[in-house]
């Protein structure tokens, strides 16, 4: 900190500080602001107060309007709402969230017309009530003050009226003829009504082409099915039926799954109620340490480009391939392979082999053939017709046409190809060849600035639409608020270009569906669709296929390369760059690296030593003539000679939040392939500050302790299934808990007594709970610099520990929020009694009593209390404040805050119960779900009344695995953990001491 920070006043709405001179009025910063963010520059002017007032007035206006906005038309969209709208009461609407071609049904909570909280729609087959971090955070995007708000014509502010006029002569006057010069680029189209409108567009312009482009697609997977079954298919993996799962570079629990479903299914088989229970076994072969890898019972770290040969070897052992075993790796791998083969054979028909999207069609084909050979096809692996899948070739062709100058008008719908396109295509140059480029986007992004027209895109929470999830189920996308920035949806723009019969999103969608139904049922069915959030009976029928592995014509295996490979993955926080301006996601630490506000080149220790580079030093990576300078970070468990880079960072045309975060991986993603080879990797010697929320601590005391006596702290308690059977209560027995008091314990036997269990065996550490909590409890975002001081504000954090070999460790993840200790050490030390206990066993904070001594945080052995070191909330612009949950007070600086078991939800439920005449009765399961519990796809978090012996939480606490963290300190926490289990292959046990 330094005095320059006094300048913050001049900058209202600057919430995320990255550097101090940014906060100050230094000329350098003014210049930067003017160059990078013209809109914000005026905030710095001498007469800033006036501008600020203008901005605020505008925001108030928005807020005011927003408050009275509602989807017009007589619809009954309320899912769990009531007849008339009561101010202050929250309402729930069902809608659907689409990203990268996969759709997940949501139930969105709105307060006074403001969507504030995203929840999964329990009726939706891809959600079943859960959701992921992206969906959770998407609500913040619509209140982003940097979101594109006006129509731009050649970079100059224009208006929709002007556009409509332009469009009418361009598209209706028929100047495009048969559309030979018309090209449209969109994200993968999963919306039936959009496909319908597209049809009519292509009917009007038969020679026009519509190209779907996704930087991260499932193209290879579908190509794989084509190789094996001769037709494109969408595979569905039923982990809930599989005892053995092999992942070939598939992070199916993490970034590679578009929906929480695979986690839901996997965790079903992973859950253990009693020692006798069988749980599944997971083998993972991967280059970077993924959360799936962290769940693995056996993990093989291998270059992504070598996984082909592993798959081939496996196929050969299973008698599918005749080609030689090209697996020349260590005998450890060999040994695991042989054990794996036996394990798969033993579990034929009860196993799943899945290849990741980064792997070639050949590997996908091999995986399918293995499944076929094991008889998994039709049982654990089923198929449906695929949703339209984008093809890299189509996009490459488009670039060809552009360069040939044969494209007159290019329409880009809601994506940012200039940023994400493979560099070798030089898309940004090609783009300039088109006479007219129309860009519909949420941000003034890299594509927008090169377009002749930029049109603001309405978010999925602001516009009507629909979407099909991978299993075919259709959901209606209904808005909760009118477009805050007068944006339009891709659907509406397409309709305009196509001159479709309906122009308004609502009419397009409603008529498209109702027209397929008998007139009598239309109204009722549409209402029901909105109410349930799904259209019954729209799921695809299973496609029964089978192939003879022996007959499959496989492309030749790619030869192993000795070059350093570079693997491109979508970022946990910003995906492909669409969330780069989303502060919740930016600040949510990467599950494995714990990196915030940045990406890095992840490398193994050995590789780092070879390159003579340490954390934070900048590497120069050259791929196909293109090079990128990016900070290196050593990641345990990373494969040697393999660099993983998360894409989406390093955007240039971006709002204030995303400015200068990370490095742009796309600069060296030469082709569409996710795996590339670096011709040169060198250490520039320059350094960069990478900020993590956690160091690479292990639970084992540091080396210097071993001299005295080696100890492993009983924090995450873990055992193999075998050990668990022999010694069911191993976890509680790891320490001696005194559990006594000189005064005798306070009596909590009466009434509701809240408690929680977290099943470490189910938790995959996906971060969704962090963001759900942030959204529910108005947890402030503090920015990279504040995090670097160690002031992270998340009420729930995921502690990641490595165990075993430093180069190739196993990892465990432990969610940690306030444990609600009955003998709370924090309470007794607060001089002003600002934190006290309720009769229901909650450890409460009285925010307006707190004087901020921080003594409670010091005395908390779990260190889960969070202190407002600065006035983090005050830095919000009013439009951003609209995302806040009105039921939770925001905390000013100098106030301590922490998890309260979502006390506002508890109170709401109690009031509800009273209203329903259940006064005095104990609350039952389902009356209350905490935000973290609700979002959890793995159902690892269970909250409830421990005084009710029937409640799930009471049941869970009865498990022998149940243990209280730091029970030896005698804090009597209400949150307890269920010990983690690993299920190693008995043949390989000696490998895991």
């Amino acid at each position, binding site marked *: *900190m*330094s*005095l320059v*920070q*006094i300048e913050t006043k001049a900058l209202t709405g600057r919430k995320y500080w990255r550097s101090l001179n940014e906060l100050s009025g230094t000329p350098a910063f003014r210049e930067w602001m003017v160059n990078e963010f013209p809109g914000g520059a005026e905030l710095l002017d001498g007469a800033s107060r006036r501008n600020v007032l203008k901005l605020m007035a505008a925001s108030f206006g928005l807020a005011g309007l927003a408050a009275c906005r509602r989807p017009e038309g007589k619809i009954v969209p309320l899912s769990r709402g009531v007849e008339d709208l009561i101010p202050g009461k929250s309402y729930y609407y069902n809608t659907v969230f689409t990203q990268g071609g996969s759709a997940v049904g949501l139930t969105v909570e709105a307060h006074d017309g403001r969507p504030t909280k995203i929840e999964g729609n329990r009726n939706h087959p891809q959600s079943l009530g859960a959701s992921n971090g992206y969906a959770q955070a998407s609500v913040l995007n619509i209140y982003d003050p940097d979101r594109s708000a006006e129509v731009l014509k050649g970079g100059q502010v224009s208006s929709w009226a002007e556009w409509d006029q332009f469009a009418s002569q361009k598209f209706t006057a028929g100047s495009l003829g048969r559309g030979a010069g018309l090209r449209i680029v969109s994200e993968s189209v999963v919306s039936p009504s959009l496909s319908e409108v597209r049809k009519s567009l292509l009917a009007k312009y038969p020679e026009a082409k519509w190209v779907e482009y996704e930087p991260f697609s499932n193209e290879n997977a579908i190509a794989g099915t084509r190789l094996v079954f001769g037709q494109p298919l969408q595979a569905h993996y039923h982990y809930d039926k599989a005892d053995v799962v092999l992942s070939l570079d598939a992070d199916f629990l993490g970034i590679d799954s578009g929906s929480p479903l695979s986690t839901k299914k996997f965790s079903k088989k992973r859950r253990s109620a009693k020692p006798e229970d069988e749980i599944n076994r997971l083998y993972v072969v991967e280059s970077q340490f993924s959360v799936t890898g962290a769940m693995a019972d056996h993990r093989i770290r291998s270059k992504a480009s070598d996984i082909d040969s592993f798959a081939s070897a496996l196929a050969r052992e299973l008698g599918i391939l005749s080609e030689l075993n090209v697996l020349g790796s260590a005998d450890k791998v060999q040994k695991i392979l042989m054990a794996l083969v036996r394990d798969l054979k033993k579990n034929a028909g009860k196993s799943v082999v899945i290849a990741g999207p980064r792997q070639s069609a050949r590997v996908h084909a091999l995986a399918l053939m293995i499944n076929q050979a094991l008889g998994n096809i039709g049982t654990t692996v089923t198929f449906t017709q695929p949703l339209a899948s984008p093809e890299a070739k189509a996009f490459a062709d488009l670039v060809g046409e552009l360069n040939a100058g044969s494209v007159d008008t290019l329409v880009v719908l809601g994506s940012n190809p200039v940023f994400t396109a493979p560099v070798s295509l030089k898309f940004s140059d090609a783009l300039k060849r088109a006479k007219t480029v129309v860009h519909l986007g949420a941000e003034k992004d890299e594509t927008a600035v090169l377009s002749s027209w930029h049109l603001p895109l309405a978010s999925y929470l602001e516009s009507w639409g629909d979407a099909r999830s991978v299993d075919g189920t259709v959901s209606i996308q209904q808005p909760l608020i009118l477009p805050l920035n007068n944006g339009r949806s891709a659907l509406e723009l397409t309709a305009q270009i196509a001159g479709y019969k309906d122009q308004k999103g609502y009419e397009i969608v409603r008529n498209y569906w109702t027209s397929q139904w008998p007139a009598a049922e239309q109204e009722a069915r549409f209402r029901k669709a909105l109410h349930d959030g799904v259209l019954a009976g729209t799921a695809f029928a299973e496609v029964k296929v089978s192939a003879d592995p022996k007959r499959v014509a496989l492309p030749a295996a790619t030869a192993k390369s000795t070059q350093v490979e570079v693997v491109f993955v979508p970022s946990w926080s910003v995906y492909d760059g669409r969330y780069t301006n989303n502060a919740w996601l930016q600040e949510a630490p990467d599950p494995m690296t714990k990196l915030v506000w940045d990406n890095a080149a992840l490398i193994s220790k050995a590789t780092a030593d070879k390159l003579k580079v340490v954390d934070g030093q900048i590497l120069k990576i050259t791929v196909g003539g293109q090079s990128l300078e990016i900070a290196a970070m050593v990641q345990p468990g990373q494969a040697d000679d393999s660099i993983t880079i998360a894409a989406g960072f390093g955007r240039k045309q971006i709002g204030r939040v995303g400015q200068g975060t990370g490095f742009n991986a796309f600069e060296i993603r030469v082709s569409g392939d996710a795996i590339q080879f670096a011709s040169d990797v060198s250490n520039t010697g320059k350094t960069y500050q990478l900020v993590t929320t*956690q160091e690479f*601590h*292990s*639970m084992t005391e*540091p080396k*210097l*302790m071993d001299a*005295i*006596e080696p*100890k492993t*702290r009983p*924090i995450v308690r873990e055992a193999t299934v075998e050990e668990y059977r022999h010694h069911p209560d191993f976890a509680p027995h790891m320490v001696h808990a005194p559990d006594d008091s000189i005064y005798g314990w306070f009596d909590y036997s009466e009434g509701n007594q809240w408690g929680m269990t977290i099943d470490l065996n189910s938790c995959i550490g996906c971060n969704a709970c962090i963001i759900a909590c942030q959204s529910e409890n108005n947890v402030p975002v503090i920015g990279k610099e504040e995090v670097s*001081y*160690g*002031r*992270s504000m998340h009420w729930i*954090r995921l*502690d*990641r*520990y490595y165990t075993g070999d430093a180069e190739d460790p196993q990892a465990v993840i*432990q969610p*940690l929020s306030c444990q609600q200790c009955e003998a709370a*050490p924090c*309470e*007794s*030390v*607060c*001089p*002003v*009694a600002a934190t006290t206990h309720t009769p229901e066993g909650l450890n409460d904070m*009285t925010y307006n*009593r707190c*004087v*901020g*001594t*921080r*003594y409670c*945080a*010091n*005395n908390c*052995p*779990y*260190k*889960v*209390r*969070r*202190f407002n*070191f*600065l*006035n983090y909330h005050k830095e919000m612009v009013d439009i951003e404040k609209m995302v806040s949950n009105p039921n939770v007070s925001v905390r000013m*600086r*100098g106030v301590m805050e922490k998890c309260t078991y979502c006390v506002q939800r508890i109170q709401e439920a109690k009031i509800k119960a009273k209203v329903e005449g259940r006064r005095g009765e104990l609350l039952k399961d389902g009356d209350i779900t905490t935000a973290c519990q609700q979002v959890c796809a793995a159902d690892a978090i269970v909250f409830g009344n421990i005084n009710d012996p029937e409640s799930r939480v009471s049941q869970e606490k009865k498990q022998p695995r149940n243990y209280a963290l*730091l029970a030896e*300190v005698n*804090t009597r926490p209400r949150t307890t953990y269920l010990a983690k289990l690993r299920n190693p292959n008995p043949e390989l046990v000696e490998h895991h001491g």
Partner: protein
Amino acid sequence: MADFALNPEMVDKVTPRLVKGNSTYKSVTDDVSRIVETKTPREWWIAFSLSVAVALMMVGMLAYLVAFGIGTWGNNSPVGWAWDITNFVWWIGIGHAGTLISAILFLFRQKWRTSINRAAEAMTLFAVAAAAQYPLFHTGRPWRAIYWLFPVPNTDLNMWQNYRSPLEWDVFAVSTYGTVSLLFWYVGLIPDLATLRDRASGVRAYIYGIFSLGWRGAARHWRHYEMAYMILAGLSTPLVLSVHTIVSFDFAVSILPGWHTTIFPPYFVAGAIFSGFAMVITLMTVARWALKLEHLITIKHLENMCKVILATGMIVGYAYGTEFFIAWYSGNPYELFTFVNRAFGPYWWAYWSMISCNVLVPQIFWFKKCRTSVPIMFIASIFINIGMWFERFVIIATSLHRDYLPGSWGYFKPTMVDICTFIGTMGLFMTLFLLFIRFLPVIAISEVKGVLAQEDQVAKHGHGAHH
């Protein structure tokens, strides 16, 4: 034989006199009063304006803190307390020597205290004043703290304090300590203020007159006065011990490894006396030279203080050793780790600075040469104060930065605001001290005369034996 008694040099060889030279009652009065009566010397102005400037820096820093919050300091999670409480404990500790000299040495009839107790008590008050800044401002919102930390009947929240909290105990302990020290100091001042009154004229006489309450040295007054002084000494003695005991409870009562230990009270008290005496030496060696009081604040006084430092230094060193032994002997892995981490963790440098300053440096006082050499003891005292600051930093910051769950571990770095605030408190301390030596008798005149009278008798006695 008898001449030997007459010869002051010879007498000093046997029992060094506490008042050197051929001092008379008059000369004592003059020597001490002169300091406040003569025209303010230029050196004083220079020193004073310097101190005020530094003190103003503190005010500025605190204003900045209040405006923006604790985030302007380096504190974080897990290190919720760092320089703030470190400096608080350091300053409070320094204060202890004053009370110890004036109260405990008084009860033990240690006559040598008389020349130094006045200044030492003043030091106590000013140290407490400096210390008080931290508990007040480390909340970032002092207006809240002032109002809510004391049991003021209120109707806003109708809430009361949590009397189980060591921090609340601190509120009572520190404010009581400050008040009682002030009373004690003032009572001691009354006769000397009367002296200044009787020598002064005009407005000065008037002001000194008011504060001396019209003292006239009547035997019936001295009777109550001496009783009061003795009772205050009797009260201050357990009080001074209780204050640092309670300060140490802030840590001992918590459940943190490295904090939760029963050794703290004696360990803290010893440390406090240790640092306090070091500070007295730092100030006195300068003051006696600057104010030409070498014959009143003699080498014997300084040497005695060096002995106290040596003794308390040994206690502190012993405590460091015991901590480590218990950490290992307890078999508590968290406790053990905390201590190993102190010595060999990221803050190893703080730990070893502490050891070398607090345990090694005082050992030089085994040698009379060092005990009686003003420059040596001055430098040593500086080191000891640095060492004691590090002790508090080590206890507070290194215990916090790595406790039970490695997942929550962190590291603390101070900011410029941290540093400037701390330097600023020194400015506050020096400002007050300079004002004190300028306007008040730095030596308890009447007490010194009492000692002088007795020493005269000793001399006379020898003389009388000759008859």
